[in-house]
């Protein structure tokens, strides 16, 4: 706290504490007890800095969609994530751009039916940056617009074989990165969390058929305004950056817990992924003659 007072003004201190308090519950919920920290591997100098992280995730998924089945399906998910943070070094605000694509294949409890899912997710947001403890801890917080399109297909259903996914959310997002060394080697521990606060999503009504929606144009509460109460979801990533030769590798865990309860239908998709990838930082420098 002494360090905090030294480096950060009072209103920002309060904000920082709030951001850190946001990060603690999901960490505790995940059964993890490490310190939540921030990322950014950029040395300070004037100019534009772009940090791009590309990750490939693989792991387990548990899917429930009561429009298709009251049974939960579990299986394997594959995900690609590209995250870019860009902005001027001397400014505190940075832009965040995230692309995610996922595909999953899951089976029911009786192991005699399949569900296939796929989605694309695009996020665009802004983050404010604070540095603490002599740049060792970087904390970022802000908001992003999150657009998602996808599907869930049950291979044996008749007139309700699939669910279309289309949603738009405003999501507060927070990140922390903590730099440290072990045996003279630099490491960065990262934690990121975002929670959809409010938005809009597509859903058929409880017993409404897609025939009514798309063949007849009979809409019935199909564009549903949502809040974090109707869609209590959370996406968080805990990862470690380390260098091999001149490459910065990232290993970690991503937990993506998407839920919705709209039009008396229940939906959840719990993804637990091991992620691996690379982080690269570019600096654009203007040369003046």
């Amino acid at each position, binding site marked *: 706290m002494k360090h905090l007072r030294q480096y950060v003004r009072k209103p920002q201190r309060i904000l920082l504490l709030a951001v850190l308090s946001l990060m603690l519950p999901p960490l505790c919920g995940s059964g993890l007890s490490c310190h939540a920290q921030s990322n950014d591997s950029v040395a300070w100098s004037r100019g534009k800095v772009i940090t791009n992280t590309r990750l490939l995730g693989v792991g387990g998924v548990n899917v429930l969609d009561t429009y298709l089945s009251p*049974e939960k399906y579990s299986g394997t998910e594959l995900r690609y994530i590209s995250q870019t943070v860009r902005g001027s070094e001397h400014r505190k605000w940075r832009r965040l751009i995230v692309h995610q694509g996922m595909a999953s294949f899951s089976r029911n409890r009786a192991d005699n*039916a399949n569900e296939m899912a796929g989605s694309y997710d695009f996020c665009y947001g802004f983050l404010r940056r604070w540095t603490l403890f002599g740049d060792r801890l970087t904390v970022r917080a802000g908001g992003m617009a999150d657009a998602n399109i996808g599907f869930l297909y049950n291979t044996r259903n008749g007139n309700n074989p699939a669910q279309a996914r289309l949603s738009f959310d405003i999501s507060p997002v927070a990140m922390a990165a903590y730099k440290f060394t072990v045996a003279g080697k630099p490491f960065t521990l990262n934690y990121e969390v975002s929670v959809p606060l409010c938005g809009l999503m597509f859903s058929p009504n*409880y017993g409404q*058929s897609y025939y009514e929606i798309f063949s007849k144009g009979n809409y019935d509460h199909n564009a549903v305004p949502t809040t974090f109460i109707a869609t209590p979801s959370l996406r968080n990533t805990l990862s470690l950056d380390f260098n091999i030769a001149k490459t910065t590798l990232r290993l970690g865990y991503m937990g993506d817990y998407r839920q919705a309860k709209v039009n008396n239908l229940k939906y959840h998709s719990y993804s637990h992924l091991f992620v691996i990838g690379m982080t690269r930082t570019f600096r654009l420098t203007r040369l003046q003659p």
Partner: protein
Amino acid sequence: MRKITHALLLLAMLLSVAVSFPSCVDEEEMSDTPRGNFEALWKIVNERYCFFDYKRQAYGLDWDEVHDRYSCQIDDRMNDEQLFEVLGNMLGELRDGHVNMYASFNSARYWRWHEDYPKNFSDSLERRYLATDYRIAGALRYRRLDDNVGYIRCSSFDAAIGDGNLDDVLMYLAPCNALVIDIRNNGGGQLTMAERLAARFINNETLVGYMQHKTGTGHSDFSSMREQRLKPSGRLRWQKKVFVLTNRSVYSAANEFVKYMKCAPQCIVVGDKTGGGAGMPFSSELPNGWGVRFSACPMYNRDRQSTEFGIEPDYNVQISDADMALGIDTIIEFARMLARQ
């Protein structure tokens, strides 16, 4: 800057609250035991089936009473065959051909809507009328009968019927004085195929019925009735008399086709009452993996009356034993007689 900081502070606090009290969106999972599967099946139907109110009025269906009556037949020591029989019998209480349960060794069904009545159709007679030189266009078989009546046999709406198919069929039969569309034994298929065929027999956008869906788990939780409007095809359309032949095995999308054709100006329905099936079926499943099908979206005729238990023809005609012995299809001949008038 301070305002932004405060806004972010508020946002973060809201998030903290949200994340601190996480709520799981989950569904109770029944155990994979005879008792668990029984309760799961009863619950699926209880929450999603669409004809409880209608069938309570029609024959006194009480789903709670059904639960009590069948629950005492469940024993966790029973094998799959025994469980299947009890659950199948319970579903039979719904008297609905769209309600089924599928296991790898059997399919539970309620077929009394056609099994309890004369068939009024014969493969042998069909062969006699179609002969061997009939044409095939998509799911349609057709020919000109010797009294210059066009005959189309449509035994299913499962397979696609393209607009090109219909153009060619109607063009070939255009010289005929009347058209007979024989949909006997057509158990349904795609509603869009039924609409596509019916759209060749109307000239104006026509109100043909209503449709609604469930909006919640209650037996009476329904959306408002939405109009079903049939738009005329923009291609070749039939302007002369058309006869639709029906029997008790006309069901589901074929029943809808009859409902649409009842609104066509030149159409006369001949044969037996249709089997019904006015609920668009949805699928679900039990913990043991058995599939379940049930009526989910009720459909009504243009007078807002349910056609779940069938549609009466304009002329109720049965195939007589005497005609059958002579190789005559009474229903086709009756339609031909009307055509000649």
